[in-house]
């Protein structure tokens, strides 16, 4: 997982340290709490590591951002744009090939295809990105939507429609990343006195605290030593403030010894980019149906594209990813309009299908027939006209983009604290949530915004930005409560819709109908989802 540092001067303990680091990180993926014994590994070999495994001099920087994802890059752009912070020497480290991939994406001439990693951004965060940061986002690839339609998978009549103009925007992650990267390049071109240094294609190998001997050189014990970050290209950085935007398996968080609490849901999410039969003409909405196996969400993209996030059991997710794309598209249509008995029948037949093409054709025909019959029944039951299905169900899908189907595990995790001496965590390194409410990156962008304002405050007062008590604690205090609340609510919602218990099902269906009719409660929920306070 981590490549070994090229040994220019071999020290016996160095290699064992790196391999234990690698294996511990691999083990920590499956545990709900990260292991603290790592720190003891560091401290025992501190004296040996300092300045010994490479002959390159240690580079010094003020702010080191580990991770070039959307959270990390927007944070870097915010720091470089802030008048109080742009004088700090900033470095951004990422293991991916940012300098090649991101400009290529930015210069895509048409929206010929859409990537499958798409998130919803609240209007407030959109203002942050377009207003405060003035990122050159590709607006032809962004789709604002005017509402969300939520329904229960065990009932046709239990549903809630939340309608509000521009309740959110569907943005590809690459769009955010590439526009932030281009902004950083632009800022570097305009300001060559203190450009941000972007070290891509560099993996973080190790993060250590410096040895105590060096720190007490002048007789004064350094209680808040600068962390030393070792990259796989041999360079080492020591930094005043280390910001971890490095995702769920964050090495920065492990260095800081911050534990996380949470669990893996026994669910995997299948994402796909889909082509619609016709673009939605009435409202442009997000649709979510809570099936008994997990929620399925259909979110609009520009033109006649749409994105899918279907959380389901691990076995079913494997099955869904392996189906031919025409069968998969039909199954997505069926999941939104047909009943639980139908879906169970299709899952069973497709699991038994092996490599029998005739079964696929039979299933496609059966799905078409059932959707036709069901649409007619819905029209009759609701005494409505032929547009009833268009108003209350998502636009049907024609096809799925090849190679856009992928699956990933669902989890909920929250770090105990976001700050440690000279360390702070932003984004997925601090919290992970189920995508059913579209809050993951919104929380991360809120974190970035809050961190920048906290750093500005400290910097304008001339304080050490790496100090927990003087600077960083405000960030944690500001964000922890909000994030904890969102994580908690999303988790409870997931648990509420994850049961088949008849009493709970009846209550939740009745409850959803009640909330649908109570304007004030709906307004409140819409405010929470769209980020307004």
């Amino acid at each position, binding site marked *: 997982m981590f490549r070994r540092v090229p040994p220019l001067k071999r020290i016996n303990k160095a290699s064992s340290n790196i391999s234990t680091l690698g294996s511990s990180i691999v083990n920590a993926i499956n545990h709900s709490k990260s292991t603290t014994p790592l720190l003891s590994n560091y401290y025992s070999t501190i004296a040996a590591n300092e300045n010994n495994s490479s002959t390159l001099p240690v580079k010094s920087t003020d702010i080191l951002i580990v991770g070039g994802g959307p959270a990390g890059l927007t944070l870097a752009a915010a720091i470089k744009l802030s008048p109080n912070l742009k004088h700090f020497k900033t470095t951004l480290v990422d293991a991916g090939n940012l300098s090649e991939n991101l400009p290529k994406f930015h210069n895509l001439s048409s929206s010929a295809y859409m990537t499958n990693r798409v998130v919803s951004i609240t209007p407030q965060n959109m203002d942050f990105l377009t207003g405060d940061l003035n990122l050159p986002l590709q607006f032809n690839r962004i789709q604002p939507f005017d509402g969300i339609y939520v329904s229960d998978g065990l009932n046709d009549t239990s549903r809630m429609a939340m309608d509000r103009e521009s309740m959110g925007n569907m943005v590809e992650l690459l769009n955010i990343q590439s526009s932030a990267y281009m902004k950083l390049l632009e800022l570097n071109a305009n300001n060559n006195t203190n450009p941000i240094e972007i070290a891509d294609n560099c993996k973080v190998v190790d993060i250590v605290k410096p040895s105590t001997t060096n720190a007490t050189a002048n007789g004064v014990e350094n209680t808040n030593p600068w962390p030393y970050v070792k990259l796989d290209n041999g360079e080492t950085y020591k930094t005043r403030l280390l910001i971890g935007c490095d995702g769920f398996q964050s090495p920065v968080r492990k260095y800081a010894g911050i534990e996380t609490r949470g669990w893996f849901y026994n669910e995997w999410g299948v994402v796909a980019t889909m082509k619609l039969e016709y673009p939605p003409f009435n409202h442009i909405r997000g649709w979510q149906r809570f099936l008994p196996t997990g929620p399925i969400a259909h979110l609009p993209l520009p033109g006649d594209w749409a994105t899918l996030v279907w959380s389901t059991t691990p076995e079913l997710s494997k099955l869904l990813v392996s189906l031919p794309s025409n069968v998969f598209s039909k199954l997505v249509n069926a999941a939104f309009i047909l009943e*639980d*008995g139908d879906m169970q*029948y299709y899952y*069973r037949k497709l699991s038994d299908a092996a490599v029998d093409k005739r079964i696929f054709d039979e299933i496609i025909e*059966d799905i078409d*027939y059932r959707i036709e019959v069901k649409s007619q029944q819905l029209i*009759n039951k609701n*005494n409505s006209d032929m547009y009833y299905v268009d108003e209350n169900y998502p636009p049907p899908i024609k096809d799925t983009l090849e190679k856009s189907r992928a699956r990933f595990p669902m989890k909920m995790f929250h770090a105990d604290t976001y700050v440690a001496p000279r360390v702070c965590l932003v984004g997925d390194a601090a919290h992970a949530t189920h995508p059913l409410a579209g809050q993951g990156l919104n929380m991360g962008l809120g974190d970035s915004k809050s961190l920048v304002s906290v750093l500005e405050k400290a910097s304008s007062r001339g304080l050490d930005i790496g100090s927990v008590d003087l600077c960083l604690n405000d960030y944690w205090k500001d964000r922890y409560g909000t994030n904890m609340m969102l994580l908690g609510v999303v988790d409870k919602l997931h648990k509420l819709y994850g049961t088949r218990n008849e009493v709970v099902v009846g209550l939740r269906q009745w409850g959803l109908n009640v909330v649908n009719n109570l304007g004030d409660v709906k307004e409140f929920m819409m405010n929470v989802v769209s980020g307004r306070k």
Partner: protein
Amino acid sequence: MLAKKSVLKVAALAKNPQPPLISRTFITQAVITGLASHFIFGKDAQLADNIENGKYSNPSTKSNDTTSIDLFKRPMEPQYDGHVPLYLHEKFLMYLVSSAKSYYHPEDGINIVQLGESTAIPCCLENLKQIMLKDDVGRRILRERPNISSETLEAFRGSNLPPNSVGMTYFKWLDKEGVGPDTRAPVQYIDDPDHAYIFKRYRQCHDFYHAINDLPINIEGEITVKCLEACNIGIPMAIMGSIFAPFRLKKAQKERLYDIYLPWAVKQGLNSKPLINVYWEEIMHKDVNEVRESLGISKPPDLRALRKEQRRLRKELKIRYER
């Protein structure tokens, strides 16, 4: 002067001899009640209700009489042929009346029919529908909507049914009981068309449950089959029937039921495959024992023979010991 005043006073007293009957509080109450009922029940409110429910039709396209209120509103349009939509209170009344009548006169078909339809609450039928949708054969039944009537059954009599087939067993049973296949009453009071079909199918397959288990059409046989249906299919009327119907029976009948037949029915119903998923028309030519095995059911003791035997024994013992 004084006299004139006193005359006027007397005249005033004569006009108003006692305290007024209609006091202020009474008037206030009456006015408030009138206003409230005008706003709740008055024509404006009814018109507003109708507009909201979509039942308002522009009076200018019809007669000029805009003051008439439609007294014969039904809850919904008929959803299928023969559908009679009922309000909830009407359904409840039908349930009360037909349950009492069925208890004392179960032989009258109308009582059972009405009891069945008033107790077939949507969640039970919806559950059944999901069971059918999950199964291959059940799905086909819902899609093809086969109808079993006396004509379709008589047609089978002519075709060459192998001995020991389901069809042959059925006709032999019919002959033994001395009845013919009869068309069941149509479903009228169930609102959803899918649910109505499922209930119709349930009714039509009732005779097959008799035939395949060789249960007669006397009251004990009917209660046994009802209990089997209750445990296997879960229709509320069947559950109620199998609990309450035995109360009216004679001691000997009750003993037979509680000792032998009801336990058999419960065990069979709970352990066998759902019987609504059986496509009877397609398995008429199949071997009956194969079908029984695939469904997981086995015959109970022969009820008619048992009754005869017990009656004979009782008579014999009576003659012997009551001399």
